[in-house]
Every structure is written in C-alpha cells, then in structure tokens.
C-alpha cells in the first residue's frame, strides 16, 4: 500500500494504491489522522489505484469521516474499481459517503 498526498486549492487529495486490509490499514489510518489533526478538513480520497478493500479499510474511512463531522469537514471518495465498488455496495457505504466516479467529478464544487 502506498499513499500520496497532494494539495489542490482548498482541499487535500489522498491517493491510495494497492490494498486496504488488516496489514495496511494501520499506516493509512495514521496518515489520515495526521492530516485531520493538521487542519486538513476537506479530503478527497482517490481510490483509483486501489485493488481491493477489506472491512479494516472500511473501518478507517468511517473513523475519519466521524472525526471530520464535528470539525465541519468533508470527505469525498472517488475512483472505485469493480471489486471495491461491490464491497461499498454490500456494506451500504455508497449511501453514507459522497462517492464519485472520477477525481474530476469529485473536485467539482469542492
């Protein structure tokens, strides 16, 4: 798993490569926490290069989202491949997250 962080205007793009599972989620969670702690409250999580996501990966997305709520922050997610999208559908995450097809669509109006 690899995470690239770039800033574009008033929001931060977090691109996750590889997989989000038991063994990688801890590191990803730390990085996301750090971003929020540093005052980055507008996050675009780009999963275009993510192969698959397990429940531990879902857990950190949920935790980050919960953490942003009192800060009036916002998290958008984009670029789900077929497998990741299926996991999102099964777990009901497509309904509770702002999910966009592509990064371009997600950036619009962010």
């Amino acid at each position, binding site marked *: 798993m690899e995470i690239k962080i770039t800033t574009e205007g008033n929001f931060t793009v977090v691109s996750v490569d590889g997989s989000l*599972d*038991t*063994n990688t989620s801890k590191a990803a969670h730390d990085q996301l926490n750090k971003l929020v702690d540093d005052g980055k409250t507008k996050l675009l999580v780009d999963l275009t290069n993510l192969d698959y996501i397990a*429940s531990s990966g879902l*857990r950190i997305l949920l935790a980050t989202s919960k953490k942003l*709520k009192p800060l009036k922050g916002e998290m958008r997610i984009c670029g789900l491949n077929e497998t990741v999208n299926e996991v999102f559908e*099964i777990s*009901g995450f497509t309904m*509770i997250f702002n999910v966009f097809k592509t990064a371009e669509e997600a950036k619009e109006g962010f």
Partner: protein
Amino acid sequence: MKLSTKILLILSGVSILSVAVIGLVGISFGKKTMEDEMFNKLTAIRELKANRIEAYFEQIRNQLLSFSEDYMVVDAMNSFHAAFEKLDDDILGLNEELIDKSLGEYYQTEFLPRINKNSEEAHLLEEFYPTDFHTKFLQYHYISKNLNKTGEKQLLTDAGGDFAYSGVHSHYHPIFKSYLEKFGFYDIFMIDLQGHVVYSVYKEVDFATSLIEDVYNETNFARVYKEALNTDSPEFIKMVDFETYPPSYNGQASFVASPIFEGDRKIGVLVFQLPIDRINNIMTDNSQWEKVGLGKSGETYIVGADLLLRNQSRFLIEDKENYLGILNDIGTPDDVISKIDNLNTSIGLQKVETQGVIAALKGDTGISIFPDYRGIHVLSSYRPLTIKDMDWAIMSELDKKEAYSAITGFVKNMIIWLLLLIALIPVVAYYFARGLVKPLEKLTDISKQMAAGKLDIESGLCRNDEIGVLACSFDTMSASLKQMMDKLEVANSTLEEKVILRTKEVEIAHYKTQSIIDNANDAIITIDEKQNIVLFNPAASEIFGYENEEIIGKSLLELLPEEYRDNHINNINAFKQSPESSKQMSQRSEVKGKRKNGELFYAEISISKQKIENQYQFTAFLKDVSVRKKAEKRLKSQSAALKSAANGIVITNINGIVEWVNPAFTKLTGYSWREVVGKNPRVLNSGKHDKAFFENMWKTILKGEVWHDEVINKKKNGELYYEEMTITPILNDKQEIVQFVAIKQDVTVRKELEKKIEEANLRMEDELNVGRDIQMSMLPLIFPAFPDHSEFNIFALLESAREVGGDFYDFYFIDENKFLFTVADVAGKGVPSALFMAVCKTLIKSRASEDSSPSSIITHVNDELSRDNPSSMFVTLFLCIIDLSTGKISYTNAGHNPPHIKRVNGDFETLNTLHGPVVGAMEDFAYGEDSVILNVNDYIILFTDGVNEGMDKDKNLYSDARLVETLKSDNSDNIKDHVNTLFNSVMEFQGDAEQADDITILGFEYLEPLINKILFTTSIILKNQLEEIDRLNEHFEEFCETNQVPPKIFMKFNIVFDELINNIVSYAYKDDEEHNIEVIINITEDHLVVSIEDDGIAFNPFNLATPDTSASIEDRDIGGLGVHLVRNLMDNFSYKRFVKKNMTTLYKNIK
C-alpha cells in the same frame, strides 16, 4: 312413482329443456351471426369500392400535379397563349358572316338538339352562341369546319390555314390527345391568365371562350379555374363536385384544376374534366352486382353533399318501369321522375336523404337498417369518402327482405330439427331408463327372495359399472349370509341337544327332591282355637312319640316344654290378631319341642292360620332339626349342583380344594373326577390372566358375593377355550362360607363367531380406506432418503386424516446437480382424489425428466390436467428445483401455502409470491417462477393447509402465526427434528379433536454445495500471525493465475482471507502458542473452493446476525461487517466443527 318413470321423466325433462334452450339460443345466435355476416359482406364490398374510388381520385390529383409541372405543358401553355394573342392579326379583315353561317348551323343542328334532349325546357341559340370573334374564329376552324362527327372533334390535328394557332395546335394536340386517351379523362383544358380556354382536346362549345367574361363564367369549370388562378402555390390542386354542365350537353361534369408555373411565374391553368362513367362503372361493377355478392337487390352508390346520387341506381338499370313506379308512390316530384325517365339516369337527379347518408356526410361510419331512397328497408353499411374537396358518402346496401330470406330459412330448419330431437328424446330416455332399472329390479327381486330365505341366488349381473358392483356385492353378501346361516344351524342343533340333556337332568333333580321330601321327618300338626290338636301326621307321631289317637283332642301345650307354654299362648293370640296368614316361629332360630318320653329337641316351626266358621285353626309344620341338620350340608350343596347340572360344575371347599365335579365338567375340560378332586382348580389356568384378575375373584367370593366373568382356560389336552364362570359362595346357617360352587359354560363357539364378525368389519373398513392406501403407497417413505448425498438432507411426513385426504409430497433428482421436491394438496377425498393425485404426481415426474423449470413444468401439468377434467378436481402445489452446486432454488407456487426459510443465523423468510391459480382449474395459464439462494445449513419448510388449519376442540385454528412462532423458536439441529417439532406442536394443539385434514410437512436442509471433480489443488500452511495473510495472498494469486482464474474473482478471496484469517489470528486462540492454519484451494470444473482449517476454539462465523447496513455514519457500528462481506462476496460457504478443529469452506462460481 316408479324409478324408471322418474328417470324417464327427469331425463326427458332435462334433455328437452336443454335442447330447447340450446336450440333457441342457437337460433338467436345464428340469426345474429347471419345478420352480422350480411353486414360484414356489405362492409367488405363498401370498403373495396371506397378504396377504388379514393385511389382513383388520388391518382388524378397526382397526374394533374405532375402534368402541370411538365416542361412540355409549360411550353404548350406559352405557345397557345401567344398564338391566341396573335389571333387579333389573324382575324383582321375576315368575313364574320361566313363564319357565323357555318358555326350557327353547328349550334342549331348539333349542339342545341343534344343539349335540349337533356334539358327540361328548350334552349335558344342566343344563350350559348359566342359573341367574341376570336372565339368564333377558333370554334369555326376546330368545330364547325371540322368534318369529324360531334363527339369526335378531337380527331382533327391540323386545321390548315396559315394562322399561328394552327401550327401550335398541330404540334401539341397529338401529345395531349394521347395523354387523355391513356388516362381516360373526359377532356383536358389549358386556360390563360385572361380566362381564355386556349386549348381543349375534345373542343366542345366552351373551347376558346372566356371563363371570366363569357356565358360559362358561372359554371363549376369557371369556379375551379378562378381558384387555381388566384393561388401562388405551384402545388395547388382544386377539385369541384359534379354539376350539370351545358357545354357537355347538360351532362354531369367535375373538374380538377392546378396552376401552370414557369419558374416563379404563373402562366396559366391546367384543368382535367372528369368523366362520370368511371365512377359509375366502379360503383355499378358494369352491372355485375350478383357476381360481387350483392344478390338480387344489393347495390353500392355514392351520394354527394347535395344529397344527390353520383352513380346510376341499380334499380333504374334493371327494372326502370318498376323503379319509376316506386318513385311515384313515395311522392317524388313529377319533374324529377320525368327527368330520370327522359335522361335515363339517376346521377345528379335521384335525391337520397336517408338516415345512413346523413350520418355518413356528418363523418360517421356504421351499419344500420333503414328505408333507402325507394322507401324500402335495407341493410346498409356506410361511411364518408375521404377525397379532398369532395363531400361524399358511400353506401353499400341490400334489401332487408332478401337478407332475411336466408335467415328465415335457417330458423325454419332449426325449428324442424329441434322438434325432431324433442320427439326423439323420450324414446331414448325410455330405453335408457329401462336399461338402468332392469338390473335394479332383478336385484330387488333377489333381495325379496333372500328375505324369504332363499340365499343361494346369484344375480348374474356382475359388471364394471356401479350397478354391476352393487350386484357383485349382493352376490358376495348372499354367499356370506348363507355361510353364516349354515354355521348358525350347526350351533342351533348343539343347543337343542343341550336343552334335552338339561331337561332330563332337571327331572332327575325333581324326583330326587321329591324323595327327600318324602323321606323328610317333618311333622304337620293342626290345632283349634283352644289349642287342641285336631291333626297329627305320622311324621309327627314319629317325632313326638305319640300315636295319632292318643294325642288328638289334647292340648298342644302337651308338646311344649313348660317354660315355653305362656309365651306360646301369647304368640298364638298375637298371631291371631295379626294380618299375616302364616308365620315362621322364631325365624332361623331353633325352638324346642317335647317328646312323649319327655325328651326335648330342637325344631323348626312354621305356622299358618285358617278361619273356618269364625273359628281359627292353626297348622304347624315342624321339623326335627336335629335330624335335618345332619343332612343339611349335603343337601344344600347337592341341590345347587343339581340345579346347574347342564354346565360344568365344580364344588370346592373354602380353601379352593375341589370336593366335587360333575360329568359336564369332565366333558368340558377332559379332566375326570378322580383327577381333580382334592386338587386345586388352577390345573385349568391358561396363563392368560394376571394375578390381579384372580385376586379380584377371591375378594368378591370371600365377601359372600357372586363372581361372574369370562375366563380363558386350558383343557387337559392343552387346548385353550373360553368359558363363562359363575362362582357362588355357599353359606351355612351362621352365614359362614362353607363351600364354593363354580358353574362353567363353554363359550368358545360364540367367541369364534364374534371374532369372525369383527374380522369382517375390519375388512369392510379396509375397503373404505383404499383411497388412503393408494395415497400412502405413492409417497417416498424411507428416510434418510439419500444417505449417499452429503449435500442435503430431506425429511417429510404425512399424517392422513380419517376421511379427508389427497395431500402428497415427492422428491427426486432430475439430473446430476438438480433435485426436485414438491408438496401438494388435492381437493376432495377418497379414491377419486387419490387417483387424481397419482396422475398429477406422474405428470410432474415425467415432465421434470426433460424440463428443469418449475414454472414450465407446472404450466404443462396444468394444461394436461385442465384439458380433460370432468370432475373439476384441482390441486395446490409448491414445486422447488434446487441446483445443489449453488444452493439456488427455483420455485413456483400454484395456489399453495407459502413455505418458510430459516437461515443458519436465525434470519427468517417467507416465500410469499403466488405464481398462479390452483392446478387443474384453468387451461392455458402461464405460471411464473422465482428463485432464492439457500446457503449452507439454511433450511426450507414446505407444508399443506392441514398444518395451519389444524383445529382444537373449540375450533380454534393452529394458524400461520403459531406455525411461524414454532419454526422461529425451534432450536433442534437437524431437518428431521425440525419437521417433527412442528408436527408435534400441531398434534399437541389439536389434542383430542379429530384431525380435519391431512397434515403434510416437508423439510429440506442444504448441507454443502455439490462439488464436481477437482481439477487443480494446492494448499498452504500459515502461522497464526497477521503478516501471513500476505503470504497466503501471494501463493493464492500465483495458483489462480496459473490456472486462469480471473482477477475479479480472486480479488474477492483476498478480502475474504483478510477477514477470516484476521478473525482466527485475533480471536481463535486463548494461549500464546504458535498454531498452524491450513488453507486448501481447489479448482473444480465450475467452482473455486477454499477450505480454511484452524485448531482454535469452536466458532461459526456465519451464525452472526446480519448488520444494519442502512444506518447513518453516526449510528454506524463497524462490527460484523467482515463476515457480512464474506457472505455476500462468496456464492456459498459452510462451517463444520471437527474434534478440536474448525473448517470454514468458501465456494465461488468461476463460470
């Protein structure tokens, strides 16, 4: 009333009524159908004509449009116009008189006679004769100077002369003429912008006139020209309806006009004159009405907005005289009639103002019956014609009289047949009733004979129908009765023998008693009121020692001990006063008497009083008890025994030891006197009765009461027999039991008879239960049904109700992977519903062998059962076909109770969809189907309404709610127990209430997916560390890639591994030791199957409840999501616990 008469009357009545009803309905239906048929025919003809007319006009418009755009026409227009203009020069200096002479003669001799022939009043030359010299000039050259006959003036092409028009005419005329001939127009005109008719093919008297200034400027020709003149559109076309047109000798003429444009410039107008003949020919079929199906009075015609005919009336053509007569009768104005008569045409003359015409002109299409223009009722089919600029109605009609002649014939025929049938019915019914009743009469006769005692009669009517069966039963019954009577006769003769024997024995007993009485030492003594003895019998002499003579006349007191004397006198006096006539002295107790020798003795005395001549006498009967007492015991017992001598008699002492038996006993048991006396009667014990039986007997008889019961005993030869035994205790004077007398009666014969009757009853009940036997014989009853198949377990049970029935269930493989199971409930009971069930079951099975769709199977079975179902039976059905490799159940519900599914984690589902009505009720119904996935250890329960409609004593229903509650709370762990739990619950609910309907329950539990042949396999052993998941993923991906499993599939396993291995590593071990986790990966033909084995604590992840995936972020709990993902990403999964080992297996379809 006799049965045959009743049948005859009912059959005749019902048949005649049905024939009459069917006949009358047939007549009315037939009439309607024939009438409809007539109307349909008229409408068809109408449409044919209408289409032809419409097409004709459409064609004309198209021709006109294309012709007006033709360059040749444009050139011709320009040329004719220019030539016409030049006429100014051509006529300069010509002699007008010469021309007037020729032209005037033509008008006088040709034109006027022709037009007058078609007119009411004679026309004058001045009305039509042209005034303009240009007109005269051209008419002179092309009409009067033209040598061709009137009506053939078009044959002149070159008029000669050196005027320009002649050249232009010679050039273009052949072309226009040819065009006209080709398309059959009446005439073609070109008119210039000033209104001059510069060209006409036929050159009637409108030729070369001005449509704006001259005499014809009011005609429909002029009107249509002016409209075309005023348009700016080259596409413009205008048509005018037929009107009387003088240049065509007052014939009917219609025109269609379109402007001629050269580029954007309008240069003239092109007009076609339309012939009325074409329309007439189409409408009158060249007088071939009968050939086109219009019979003798049918016709088609067109009526214009002026309500006038546009074609010839058929009746005018066929029978003019009659037609005119009718017109006269209905009040048509004379001038119209004479016009029609003179002109020999109805076109534009005959007014048609009928109901249909008015409706059609309003735009309505329809059929109706009304009087036509002749006032005669016709069947009419009408509609408006859709021709632009024309407001026309087309009518297709046939005289009602003709139309109805066929109908009347049909009705006549029907009535004749109806009457014939009605006459025939009683005859047929008579023979039928006779055939039906004859065997019954014979049977009645036989039964009368039987009643009179004649039993060996055979009816000879044994056949297959109901009466035949009844006759058979009669035969069987008479045979059985005969047998039974024979047996009774045998039994009867035995009884008589017994009576004779008994009578004899009673006589002997009587003599013996008599002799005892004779030998008794009773004394009889009579005294008078003064106590003096008046009678003293020899026995008394013997007892007391007094001779008769010495005691007679003495006082009785002599015979009494001194101490009793006072008491005696008191007693006698008291007795005298008492109302009793006799008295036993000191009853049961002994009194004493005194002998002559002074000896006292015990005596038993009874006295009686007689009043003779106001004097009382007393007679005493006295027994010397001392003597009697000696014999008493023996006498008592002997007398009882003798009284019962017909039966076997045993006398025992109080301890039960046999003292005496009679010969009947020996005969009954085979034991002789010698063999039993002094012994206990238990030698007869058969061992068939328990200890309590004998204890009860002893208890009864030791109380001094009589005991009576039926006993099975054993004869000396070992044979068992039934006897009725009565044991009477014998009491002595002090009420002590001294002996027991047992009287035995053999009832074996009676018992056997009873047993036979009972057997016969049972047999009869069996026959009544044939229906149930058929039902049960068709069910698979052996469980486990498929012990070789570990993929599933099925269990079913069916509890028949006493009467109602027809449930069934069935299950079998239809191919290697697919397994069918079904539950059904046939309406009705007994043999018919059992047979219907058998048919239904067989149809399903045979169809399923080639069809794996439940809806298709049921649709087929329904069609088969509905097609020929005279008894209107039906069945409700729930049919499932499960694919054992995936757990997918396809199902169809045909009017049946919805089954329930219970998932391994406790989730509960009901398959509520109904896919169609009950099977057997409605042919051609297409049933639907649905599907549902059974995961491993899920089970489905199918049942019939005997379950939810089970009733207790108070008629409360078991109910769906109770059923669901029972299934939900059932914690047993196999399908047989699930089914039994439900069944027992229903039974318990019913209690003692009688079961109203069959109860059927079928349970199916899915245990594991069917694995086909394993093609590739690998395995890997992991340590219980989270990092090992990556190693597993690598190994797994390599194996998958080698064997061409698509990444989309194995990526799902990556997620599943992450969840499951994480669970195991994190929660399965309660120690800190190192453990192995083995992962086995198999690829079969269609599945990827992965098993994970660990030695952690027992834990079935799939028992976890489904998490709520619809909660918002705040309320969202992440727990349980991992297993939820596994469930949904995999096609199926299973969990098994072995000794100290968990095995979780995952199945994914790779096809």
